[in-house]
């Protein structure tokens, strides 16, 4: 309860500070609108459907790209952890590519795919798939050796071992990787959408800039924060917490 009060208090304090600064007139009001105006603009955009439409497009893209990332990244991580060839040959490549910020793929993607959705999808996938596969590999390698031993002595092998011991044993780590992958994907998506006409949240931001509408820019930023936090808190943290409790990784309270 106190924790929530503190959180809320801090938030209110920030908004109040923002409002005071905006009203003090230190900066031009057009360049530094207060939170009330920003929220108003946000509500207006939500009303006329611009925000909803942009969010839907962005999320649709993100989901498609993320699904691809997961379906490539998790098996890739598993392979790297389990097969010597992948560990020796593929892992260095993955680690090397991971050093490249995802947005750096955009020029290449634009040349390859043209100015369309595929280019953005490519950037988002490249931004998240490597992180997911590295986290999966870590999680699989981190399997409790005791469990591996007991699986051996019980004669658990083959697919039963993969799906009954290895994956469940690594699941908390994999979910952490998925969460990380999601935030990478979210970043890559918005960076990609900013750069060309895409109809998503990123474009809403760019449009605000082009119209010199700082209020809209700030409102969209606020919306992006809200969506990001919601997905992270509501979806991943809940799943992660549940999983860790069931696996007995946290002391149950």
């Amino acid at each position, binding site marked *: 309860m106190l924790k929530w009060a503190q959180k809320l208090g801090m938030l209110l304090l920030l908004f109040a500070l923002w409002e005071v600064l905006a009203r003090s007139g230190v900066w031009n009001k057009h360049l530094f609108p207060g939170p009330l105006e920003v929220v108003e603009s946000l509500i207006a955009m939500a009303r006329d459907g611009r925000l909803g439409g942009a969010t839907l497009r962005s999320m649709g893209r993100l989901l498609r790209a993320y699904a691809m990332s997961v379906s490539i990244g998790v098996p890739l991580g598993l392979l790297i952890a*389990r097969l010597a060839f992948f560990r020796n040959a593929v892992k260095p490549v993955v680690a090397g590519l991971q050093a490249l910020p995802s947005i750096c793929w955009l020029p290449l993607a634009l040349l390859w795919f043209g100015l369309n959705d595929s280019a953005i999808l490519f950037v988002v996938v490249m931004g998240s798939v490597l992180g997911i596969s590295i986290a999966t590999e870590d999680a699989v390698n981190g*399997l409790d*050796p*005791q*469990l*591996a*031993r*007991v*699986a*051996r*002595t*019980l*004669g*658990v*092998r*083959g697919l*039963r*071992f993969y799906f*009954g*011991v*290895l994956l*469940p*044993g690594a*699941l908390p780590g994999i979910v952490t990787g998925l969460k990380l992958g999601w935030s990478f994907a979210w970043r890559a998506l918005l960076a990609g959408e900013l750069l060309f006409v895409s109809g998503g949240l990123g474009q809403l931001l760019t449009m605000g800039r082009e119209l010199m509408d700082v209020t809209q820019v700030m409102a969209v930023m606020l919306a992006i924060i809200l969506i990001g936090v919601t997905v992270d808190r509501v979806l991943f943290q809940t799943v992660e917490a549940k999983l860790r409790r*069931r*696996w*007995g*990784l946290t002391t*149950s309270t």
Partner: protein
Amino acid sequence: MVRRLFERLRGLRQVAPHLLRPAHVNADRAKISVAQLGHHYANKVVALKDVNLNVRSGEFVCLLGPSGCGKSTLLYALAGHVVPTGGSVAIDGKPIQGPGPDRLLMFQEAALFPWLTVRGNITFALGARGVPRNERRERADTFIQRVRLEGFADTLPHQLSGGMKMRASLARALAVDPTVMLMDEPFGALDAQTRVHMQELLQSIWMRAGKTVVFVTHDVQEALMLGTRVVLMAPRPGRVVEDLEIHLPMPRSLEDPSLDAMARDIRHRLRAVEGPLENQHPEPLPRRTQTPSSLPRPSIVTGR
């Protein structure tokens, strides 16, 4: 000095001369036969040297000795988790090659799958042994009852106490019905009270199930309480020094005075083989040992 010690030893030995007798088992009648077994780890540590041991079907053999005497290595060789560098290990006359369904290894840790309930752990193991799906649940419940965990079938491992976890692990081991159970200090991590309960439980189950058990321990009382035979081992290099049958009827009790007498006898025998260095220590046996750290971490590959 040496003579005095020797005389003292002989005097103590007479306390229970009829209870501890040297074991003689013919190799051709044995369930498990270990011959001239030797093993050294990659770091040149000689874990076992010329170990011979024959175990009859239905026996409860305790491997007893201080840490570093190779008792765990011997057990892991029987389990097929360690490939010895010399000698032969055979079960029913067939050389052991890797882990098999006839043998089951139990560890100091309960090693339950944390995401499965107690029943889930057992049914999963039964599935791996090819038990039909519709029989698994009933069989799991039978063994949950046998280790007296009724009411905890749907509980997750992390919600159980240490002793209950061990009982669940025991139920899982019994349910897959191996002919040989290999136990590596399974009660070593439990508190004294729980350990006694577990020993009594294991004894009653063993008397019923009639399995062949090889049980590693460093606890003299535990070995005498549970075993039909106790094999004393000594370190540097790991070897068998004495192989004794325990002629004391079951069920046994830790309060039995003849058990105490035997324990004293065994301690002196162990002290004698430890050499003069260890003679300075009043109690050469460590309270608890871990699996040798030099044991290779098993590869998690089971498919091959």
